[in-house]
């Protein structure tokens, strides 16, 4: 619904080019569009979940230029020229899961699944840098992702298993 005051708002638009899961996209975004909303609403990559939208829950974590970041705390305009990986970019094809996804399934590392994409992206970046983590390091790495179902133990188990499989 449009009102007179809405019409007064000078919409600030930016053209951005961003590579997501290997595909380059050029889109026009409003300044205030969050990266999380851009991924979900503009690119229709709804695998990135939004929970708290103020940087607490970690559900929206994606990998930006190689490091895990909260996509609700970045503006889409800031992603111009950057390379992003979301949960849709993990599995090699429709038939196979990524080793982390496989391990999460094998260890019952998810129940409702809402937090899972964020956990997968956080831990993918973590395991890329730490091939042989111990349980304490895994728990520390997971600390920025909230899960209200599992109690975390099965996620920790899954990450230990995934790390082991990735090493062999």
């Amino acid at each position, binding site marked *: 619904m449009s009102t007179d005051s809405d019409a007064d708002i000078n919409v600030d638009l930016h053209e951005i080019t961003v590579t997501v899961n290997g595909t380059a996209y050029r889109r026009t975004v409003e*300044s205030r569009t969050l990266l999380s909303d851009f991924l979900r609403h503009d690119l229709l990559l709804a695998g990135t979940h939004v929970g708290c939208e103020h940087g607490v829950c970690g559900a929206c974590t994606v990998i930006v230029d190689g490091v895990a970041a909260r996509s609700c*705390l970045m503006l889409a305009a800031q992603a111009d020229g950057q390379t992003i990986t979301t949960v849709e970019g993990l599995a090699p094809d429709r038939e196979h899961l990524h080793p982390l996804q496989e391990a999460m399934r094998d260890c019952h590392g998810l129940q409702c699944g809402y937090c899972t994409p964020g956990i997968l992206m956080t831990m993918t970046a973590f395991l890329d840098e730490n091939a042989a983590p111990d349980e304490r390091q895994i728990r520390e790495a997971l*600390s920025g992702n909230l899960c209200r179902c599992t109690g975390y133990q099965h996620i920790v188990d899954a990450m230990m298993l995934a790390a082991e499989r990735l090493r062999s």
Partner: protein
Amino acid sequence: MKPAPFKYIAARSLDQALALKADYGDEGHFLAGGQSLVPTLNFRLTQPAIVIDINPLTQWAAIDCTAAGAVRIGALTRYRQIERDSNIALKLPLIHEALPHIAHPQIRNRGTLGGNLANADPASEMPAIVLALAGKLHAQSKNGDRWIAAADFFTGALSTALEPDEMLTEIELPAAKAHSGSSFMEVARRRGDFALVGIACTVELDADDRCVEARIAFCNAGETPVLAAEAGQSLAGRPVAAPEIEAAAALVQRAIDPGGNVHASKEFQRHLAGVLTKRALPEANARARAAA
């Protein structure tokens, strides 16, 4: 859309960023790591006319250890980079020890030292650390630049001495001296949460292991980070032993003015500050004695 509308400009140069800030003043916000600013935008607690993204100004994302006795850290340097820098571990062990306590890995991947200090959250770790280390902060504006002592920088909760046209560009911290030690500790409900109270302290000893200087600062113990100056001075010329530490802890409890919150009453915060003093001072002292 969660944030209210604003104009966004990715700064191409420091001059451009400073010119925009001069034009917009308090209506303009610098965007560094965004880990504090963007939540407040999302809640519409902050509704700036313009957001000036300084992330492209990568010359301010560097750690410079070339000067003798000091470390300069660009305001845009991310926690991740500071955490992994071997020079920081060596020259600023207090910062190295504190970093894992700051939020979570994803936040540290983006969050910057300068953004954190300019945000001046009294519950945050870095303001107390920079105060304990007697750091200096470099501010630049269209019309010039100046150094501000950490003791003068934090003027209130979320308030600093920065003028509306100024940008924090660099932080200079004295490197740890020989025969000195430091300790950072905090009590939080969960790892990564804001501290109920945190302590950052340094102890420098003479050849006889008597205290030359001790500096004790706290986060979440008042409207600003708090330096318990009297408590530190009470140790000067004395061994950092049990009776001296007991006396310093009592002075600490008088120096701070915690606000209390849903997780900890004022009384409990004051109690914690005393406990942390009695834990951190012996640790800093032991480290100083072990240091050559």
